């Protein structure tokens, strides 16, 4: 069976580097995660997440710099509040909040990237594909 697609929005400064590091180290992470590089986790609008779902994604992973490490100082704090409110909104609309995950991966954390990505893939596999009417 085809694995459900996960869209990963990765911040340019930390998490995308982290994913690169995972690649360099030949760490395995699921192929059904499609990564999109964004400048900051704070750039990820709730609309992007809904758009991903509408276009067939079953999960959305947003990765940014650890709190205190944001290249733009406060972008990840903004992301934290937005995604938290979005998840509450999604739950009311019958979409499991676990289908959206915001987490932090630093530039050197290849292993952490692989771990988070694998966990997300397991979560989404457990929930099954997201079917929208």
């Amino acid at each position, binding site marked *: 069976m085809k694995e459900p697609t996960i869209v990963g929005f990765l911040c340019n400064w930390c998490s995308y580097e982290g994913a690169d590091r995972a690649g360099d180290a030949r760490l395995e992470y699921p192929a059904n995660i499609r990564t999109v590089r964004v400048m900051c986790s704070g750039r990820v609008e*709730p609309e992007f997440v*809904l758009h991903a779902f509408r276009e067939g994604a079953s999960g959305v992973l947003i990765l940014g710099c650890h709190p205190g490490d944001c290249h733009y100082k406060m972008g990840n704090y903004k992301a*934290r509040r937005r995604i938290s*409110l979005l998840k509450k909104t999604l739950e*009311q609309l019958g979409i499991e909040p676990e289908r959206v995950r915001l987490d932090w991966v630093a530039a050197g954390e290849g292993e952490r990237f692989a771990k988070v990505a694998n966990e997300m893939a397991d979560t989404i596999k457990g929930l099954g594909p997201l079917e929208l009417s």
Partner: protein
Amino acid sequence: MAKPKVAFYWCASCGGCEEAVVDLAEDLLKVVDAVDIVLWPVALDFKRKDVEAMKDGAIAVSFINGAVRTEEQEEMVKLLRKKSGLVVAFGSCAHIGGIPGLANFWDRETIFERVYKDVPSVRNPEGIYPQQKTKVDGVELTLPEFYDTVYTLDQVINVDYYLPGCAPPPDLIMNAVTAILEGKLPDKGSVLAPDKSLCDTCPRKDSKPEKLSIKAIRRPHEVIADPEKCFLEEGIICLGPATRSGCGERCINANMPCRGCFGPTKGVRDQGAKMVSAIASILGVEDEDKVTEEEVESLVKQIDDPAGLFYMYSLPASMLRRKRMG
């Protein structure tokens, strides 16, 4: 020369849009002078068969209000589409789903159960629900199908223009009618209202601080709002940031926050998601670097019903369109 034919029709709506036409007051006489009204169920006695008898495209413009939620409404709007040169989605419900669109948090089964059985004022021990076909004394009676989902007009037929608002204000209606009569219409698909956000034209705009930061969310019934201050500054959620202007700021002037009836501005695909973004961005900005995950949760928890509030008028037009039923 024959006057252009105009139709008014209503689907899932409250009648407020009909009222808005009547609110044109003396201007309505000018409209009636300039056009031939060939269908207007609320006011005139033309029937469906009268429309069916017309040639395709014979009606210059149909103003259709209300969302589409039954088989009959779907048939009627498809008929009007065939017979009309232009179709204008009139009012919030036709434009973005409107208040009837909130039914997309449920489906037919859960709505019927609530309305025909569980409501405290209803006694229905046999569990009788509306049926599409019923035999009474050997005669079969029929009702149109009630859909699980409420649709915007443009999800059912092609729509040429949109007149937003709950209900559209008289000045925008007159502008639209004049533009149609004079053939001075903007590009097809346009919303016939300014493409500015409500905050941009808000009479309280100058009171808004440079950087908004709120900690406590207050619901309109919990406080008496300062009639001069930006609602958001007071912690009262106002949909102004994600809503199109052109309404005449009627709610703001009545000291009530915006609820989004004009839908979003042009570039926005999902009004509710934009509000999630706008509110989360100003909620607890102060000392945001010292706030723990738990504190973020409790800040957000203050908003009791984000989906219902942020999508109050636009759920059917949103990217998810409806609640996913488990």
